């Protein structure tokens, strides 16, 4: 079925089809609609979900942890300060290996207070042991919400699917939905090893773990993350067969003969692809690489993609506040260290707090990248693009 949906509506629609056992949530702009719309599905009896309106995001994700420990399929949605308030519980969810799925709408973290898009919120949770997938548009947000549930359960790790606040979350687009009955069939039942409610086989969850075993438990969690990428590829392949839409780990656009490229995440991928088309019409060999799966980082696929270009502009809608630039830039530099094919990298930190980036902006970045290709020198490795006073 083809419908017109905003990103939030599309994610809520996916949640309706997934029909989770439990959704515990607290509203926050720009993610409010996801659970607001979902609560209507609950009210109208369109889903069987136990809906828990919590008193804070910390309580919401804590309720998710409890529910998921029983073997339930559990989802929630949040943004910005909400994911920040969830922060300590995120590590508990991943440590306990609970496949909770969060529909995360990217919004800048305070301060200064702002409600618009950048990636500082999800990236501040980067090291929490959650799978993170960034989407480019409403269709992908819908599809990835369904994919993430299956991936999380197969990997026994929690996952967050992100959309860019307002740009995707409130932008109406054409969305193709999978049939209602196909989604539960695609997902199957969640398989569990232990349930908190299995009184015949009682277990202790989350016991104190000191010098003698903590490290071993963390090591097994790291190992679980190490097995995620093949799981994502398998589930994306299955979903491709179901929907006709095939998603990669790393989205490459016109990269085969690209001389210069940009690397980005989220909705900027869409804007960038239009810029690529415009420049291609002028005969310029430009390409685009979009990091779709961000955690775990798809090292091999990313090295293969970036190595095709001679110069790569890395676009980060976030800054690490470490004087080392943006998150994606640091990851890109790290994975290319051992590569024989190392393109020149230049970091463009852009769009903080929702500042718009236009097709023309990206065209101007490509122009700079061609200049670097010509001279073979990166004049300045980290720049703050679109800020006044530079």
């Amino acid at each position, binding site marked *: 079925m083809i419908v017109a949906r905003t990103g939030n509506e599309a994610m809520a629609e996916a949640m309706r089809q997934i029909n989770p056992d439990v959704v515990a949530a607290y509203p926050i702009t720009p993610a409010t609609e996801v659970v607001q719309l979902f609560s209507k599905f609950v009210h109208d009896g369109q889903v069987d979900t136990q809906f828990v309106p919590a008193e804070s995001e910390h309580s919401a994700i804590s309720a998710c942890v409890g529910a998921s420990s029983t073997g339930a399929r559990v989802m929630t949605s949040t943004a910005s300060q909400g994911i920040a308030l969830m922060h300590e519980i995120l590590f508990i969810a991943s*440590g*306990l*290996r*609970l496949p909770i799925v969060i529909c995360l709408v990217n919004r800048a973290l305070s301060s200064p207070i702002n409600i618009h898009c950048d990636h500082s919120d999800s990236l501040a949770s980067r090291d929490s042991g959650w799978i993170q997938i960034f989407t480019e548009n409403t269709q992908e947000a819908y599809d990835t919400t369904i994919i993430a549930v299956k991936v999380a359960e197969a990997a*026994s790790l929690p996952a967050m699917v992100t959309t860019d606040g307002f740009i995707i979350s409130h932008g109406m687009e054409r969305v193709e939905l999978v049939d209602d009955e196909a989604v539960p069939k695609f997902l199957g039942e969640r398989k569990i*090893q*232990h349930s908190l409610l299995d009184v015949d086989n*009682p*277990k*202790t*969850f*989350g*016991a104190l*773990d000191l010098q*003698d*075993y903590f*490290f*071993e*438990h963390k*090591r*097994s969690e790291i*190992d679980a993350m190490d097995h995620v990428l093949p799981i994502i590829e398998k589930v994306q392949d299955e979903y491709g067969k179901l929907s006709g839409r095939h998603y990669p780990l790393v989205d490459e656009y016109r990269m085969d003969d690209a001389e210069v490229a940009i690397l980005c995440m989220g909705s900027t991928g869409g804007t960038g692809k239009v810029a690529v088309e415009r420049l291609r019409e002028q005969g310029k060999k430009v390409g685009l690489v979009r990091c779709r799966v961000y955690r775990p980082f798809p090292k091999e696929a990313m090295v293969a993609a970036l190595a095709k270009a001679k110069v790569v502009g890395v676009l980060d809608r976030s800054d690490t506040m470490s004087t080392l630039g943006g998150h994606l830039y640091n990851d890109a530099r790290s994975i290319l260290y051992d590569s024989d094919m190392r393109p020149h990298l230049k970091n463009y930190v852009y769009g903080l707090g929702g500042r718009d980036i236009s097709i023309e902006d990206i065209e101007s970045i490509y122009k700079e990248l061609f200049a670097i290709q010509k001279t073979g020198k990166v004049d300045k490795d980290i720049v703050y693009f679109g800020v006044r006073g530079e």
Partner: protein
Amino acid sequence: MKEQKKGWKELPFGLALDAATCLEFPTGDWRSERPIWDPEKCTHCMICWVYCPDSAIIVKDGKVQGIDYKYCKGCGICAEECPPKVKAITMVREEK
């Protein structure tokens, strides 16, 4: 001999341990004072059983049978809570 601990690949999944692992820890060896129960004085009011934080008061058919020294940590709550007119439990120094 040094205890052989499990490597990370051998651990059970997801931090879920068997329940009631405290049964494997005989906490009675923490005791510096030992409660002595006097069956002659005991009225079987069950106050000690209610208060004991380690479930170390042995009860059968509604009657106190004695104290489980495998787990009793010697905290003395039973002796303190035994009614003043009964005083069926007294604490004595644990001898080596």
